[in-house]
């Protein structure tokens, strides 16, 4: 141990100097820089996502006039309502059917696009993405005119072939079909582009090896393409499931939840109750109910992805 005689002022200076050095080193660390660069986004998420989420939880625990804490009272009330269970069922039907068709159509179209020579592929990719880049509120308005109760362009076309008009938005079955159709039309390009990117990353050698082994077209898809795309399929499905489950604009514009509430989803019903019915706590409870359902789906899908990641 070396004793060094230093004055009181010198100790302070040394401490200050070492703090400055530590700060300089910290700023030079990659993790610190990364943190600082992501800080604006973290703050943005905190303000726009975390705060509203907790505020929604707070609202869901209040009574209708928002003067009293009722705990899980709003949820208990909802569980006793038939309309609530109808909305749960409809949301599941809507989301699952739409995601399956989006994935299927996206997969098929991605294969077609993949086989187009690279020069023309860019144009096709651009065109196929059009439904996804148009704001859904706008494109759904165009669909509304096509389905219009009295002046449907579809019915006009059917009429040319002597087919009776269809009440696209007035009959339960057709109304559900219509909202799912528009959602598939809007969302399929997202699957297409994700699958296309994934297809491009599958090494050609695997197909060559499969061809040498005598694999036919179906076997190449089943044993080469699909296993190579599994993770991207899982992630895309999860992402789309969340977005589709929380859909609002398509149903709101096309049917407003009708006829007889049979096309309502969580978001549209929450709006109806919370904003149009001035029962904000109940509206918040309805919208919060999506979270556990999606959390369960996310858990299973992501667990599968992680498992495969570990196997690899």
């Amino acid at each position, binding site marked *: 141990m070396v004793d060094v005689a230093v004055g009181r002022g010198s100790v302070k200076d040394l401490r200050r100097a070492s703090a400055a050095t530590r700060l300089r080193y910290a700023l030079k660390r990659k993790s610190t820089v990364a943190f600082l660069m992501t800080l604006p986004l973290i703050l943005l998420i905190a303000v726009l996502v975390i705060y509203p989420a907790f505020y929604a939880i707070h609202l869901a625990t209040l*009574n*209708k*006039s928002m*003067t009293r804490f009722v705990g899980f009272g709003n949820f208990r*009330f909802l569980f006793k*309502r*038939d*309309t609530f269970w109808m909305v749960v069922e409809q949301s599941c039907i809507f989301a699952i059917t739409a995601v399956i068709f989006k994935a299927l159509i996206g997969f098929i179209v991605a294969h077609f696009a993949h086989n187009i020579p690279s020069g023309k592929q860019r144009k096709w990719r651009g065109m196929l993405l059009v439904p996804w880049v148009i704001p859904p509120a706008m494109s759904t308005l165009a669909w509304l005119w096509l389905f219009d*109760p*009295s*002046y449907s362009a579809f019915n006009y076309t059917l009429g040319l072939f002597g087919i009776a008009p269809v*009440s*696209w*938005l*007035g*009959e339960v079955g057709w*109304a559900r079909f219509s909202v799912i159709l528009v959602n598939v039309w809007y969302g399929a390009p997202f699957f297409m582009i994700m699958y296309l990117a994934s297809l491009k990353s599958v090494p050609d050698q695997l197909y060559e090896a499969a061809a040498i082994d005598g694999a036919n077209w179906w076997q190449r898809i089943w044993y080469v393409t699909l296993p190579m795309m599994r993770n991207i399929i899982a992630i895309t499905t999860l992402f789309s499931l969340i977005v589709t489950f929380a859909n609002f604009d398509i149903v709101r514009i096309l*049917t*407003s*939840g*009708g*006829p*007889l*509430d049979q096309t309502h989803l969580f978001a549209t019903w929450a709006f*109806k*109750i*919370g*904003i*149009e*019915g*001035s*029962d*904000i706590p*109940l509206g918040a409870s309805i919208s919060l109910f999506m979270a556990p359902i999606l959390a369960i789906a996310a858990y299973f899908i992501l667990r599968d992805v992680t498992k495969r990641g570990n196997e690899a």
Partner: protein
Amino acid sequence: MSRRRLSRRQFVAATALSSAALISAPYLRAAGAAGKLAIGLWDHWVPGANKTSTNLVNEWAEKEKVEVSIDYITSQGNKNLVTIAAEAQAKSGHDILAMPTWWPHANSDQLEPVNDVMEPLIKQNGAVNGTVQYLGQLEGKWLGVPTCMGSQIKGPCSRIDLMKRYADIDVQEMYPAGSPPKADNWTTDTFLKAAEACHKGGYPFGIGLGETSDSVDTAGALFQSFGAELVNAKGDITVKTDAVRQALEYYKKLISVLPPDVAAWDDASNNKWLIAGKGAMILNPPSAWAVAKRDAPEIAAKCWTHGFPVGPKGRFAPFLPFFLALWSFSKNKSAAKSLLTQLSQPASIERLVKASGGYDLPAFEKLTTLKVWAEQEPPKGTLYHYPDPYHQQKLSIAASPAPPKIAQQIYAQATLTKMCLKYAQGEKMENTLAWAEDQCEGFMRT
């Protein structure tokens, strides 16, 4: 840096001079001297109507030296309702905000009572109709001042030619321009027979059965004309009554002669129905007629707005008022109340109604005979009976007289039209009533 020191003498002299100047100088009021006021008004669909309201507010602001800012908030996509909810949560925003129908009651805890504005206005302009009282007052406290901007009656707008040809009804003779209606025979039965005849003639009445306001309002007025209430004024559920059964039977017959897709109609569908010349009648304020005047003048020239048919319990017409409400968190309440008074002066109301082409309706008794309605054309006098100048109808809102917070749920959930649709689609009467009763039980939440 040198600093000039102020001696005691200099300080006393300066203070005396400043005080003298302040006292003797004329009192100068700059713009904004009486503070600021933020106003959120309904964005009127009639071109030029917003300009008139802006001018009225600015004239008042100039006189009172208040700095004003006006936002016009559309009701498209219910943006106005979202704004009301957001300001109520944030306890901040506009000082005065236009609120439709149920919203003053829904936000009653956060609104400044305006009895001191309303009482002199009622003395001056006459009593307000029952619906305005029902929607605007809570335990003697006025929650807002009814404004003509956006307030409307959704009465029948008939095609003169088609009603004459198919139903043998001369609507101009029944509701003559400039004189009282001769509508004793205009009953719910006549209405149904006319609907059947026009349907047979290929021009069905355009009455929606969707979940939006137009569909609900029509059902509400017809239910009330049968005395059918789902919840009474005391808050008791009264679904299983003969009156409700009668109303449902009536609606079932009516639905059979309406266009087949009415379950999917929204508030634009009936307008399009009339403008396209496909139907003999719709139940709507004169917006459809006004658009027809621009886009299909030959149709507009054959339209006549008039009163509702009378039922066993009276003649009811849907009236949807807007209120100008003052938030309790407003920082300039006295200026706001002064503006509310100014906007409800007969001269101001006349200017607003004129700017809206007769669409806007004042709630005050003495202001339903303005020249503007008599002058509208084509055809001359088409809107004469729109404001119910002879007070022949009971202006009401669907789901009343249930306590407003319950009635709002019945209205927003379109329980009436859903009941009618269920029953018309083959559901048994008792099952339909049981379903409605269960719905109403859910609306009793406090």
